[in-house]
């Protein structure tokens, strides 16, 4: 049986098929989960993909956290299940309190759609178990509100506990401490602004994202 990865779909999500396709290409099986469902249908891992959940009204992720499926995702995460939030999914996980901090508007107020270079800062997370420490990966970003911010106390905790998962080599959006991805205390919930699912085939300009999603399949 291939590893089953649930991909959560809110009204306004638009990266779900990219995630399903990327997971399928790595030998897993992507399965769409509607936001109105109350359970995860027995999947082995969860991806909260990119897009504009509930139109991003009020704040990105502010309304998505009230969707029925988020209760099941929270419970799954509390039991140690691997959960990865990509882009809007990262924003949803911060609003839901599964990850610390918040995503602000980009420094410079521009929507950014470009390749970025990421450095792997820890291999101890469900997203980077297969990667090598210090490896640089080319993965695109595609966001307006990707400027990671948190208070000083949270930042020093993230550093001390080795919870900064990925950093931008050249900071595109003003994120504090060049942070591109963080994980929770138990290291089974990771949020990142770049899109690894769009960098899983050389045809797309980079296949560097594959090692990240392959790590997620390993962790499941």
């Amino acid at each position, binding site marked *: 049986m291939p590893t089953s990865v649930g991909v959560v779909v809110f009204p306004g999500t638009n990266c779900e098929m990219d995630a399903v396709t990327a997971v399928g290409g790595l030998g897993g099986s992507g399965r769409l989960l509607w936001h109105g469902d109350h359970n995860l249908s027995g999947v082995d891992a969860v991806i909260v993909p990119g897009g504009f959940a509930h139109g991003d009204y*009020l*704040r990105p992720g*502010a309304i998505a956290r009230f969707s029925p499926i988020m209760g099941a995702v929270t419970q799954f995460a509390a039991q140690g299940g691997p959960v990865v939030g990509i882009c809007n999914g990262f924003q949803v996980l*911060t*609003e839901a309190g599964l990850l*610390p*901090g*918040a995503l*602000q*508007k*980009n*420094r*410079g*107020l521009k929507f950014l759609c470009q390749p970025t270079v990421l450095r792997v800062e820890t291999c101890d997370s469900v997203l980077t178990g297969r990667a090598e420490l210090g490896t640089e990966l080319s993965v695109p970003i595609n966001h307006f509100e990707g*400027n990671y*911010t*948190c*208070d000083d106390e949270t930042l020093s905790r993230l550093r001390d506990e080795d919870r900064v998962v990925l950093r931008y080599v050249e900071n595109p959006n*003003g994120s504090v401490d060049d942070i591109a991805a963080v994980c929770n205390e138990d290291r089974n919930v990771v949020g990142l602004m770049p899109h690894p699912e769009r960098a899983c085939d050389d045809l797309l300009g980079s296949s560097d994202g594959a090692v990240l999603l392959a790590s997620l399949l390993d962790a499941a």
Partner: protein
Amino acid sequence: MSALLDGRWLNGPVLISSWRDFVRWETERDMGERARRIDCEDPTMNYNVLVDVRLRGGIADPAGATIERVLPALGYEGVTGVSVGKTVRFVMEAANEFEAEARANDLSASFLTNPVIEDAEVTVRPADDT
């Protein structure tokens, strides 16, 4: 003499056989109606709530900074501290102003603002009935 008066008996049908009976019946009816009216009367009032959402101190405000930077070019010198936030307005039912304030503050903190980056000033005023 006896009469059934339009069927609106307070405690079941009453046999009215004298003027005194009628007066007593009428008094009980009026008192009952007054009590019913008090029961049915909506005990809540409407309050206009304004939630002024701002970025917390220390959080970069690129929109405010950009506006401030262009002001001198438009001839507005000496304008500082520009910050851009958002406002949310709604009407809230509550028994009194204290309850309205408490519920509006709770709503603001739990949903309308993200405490990591924002805080808010909540203003509650009785809604104008006119």
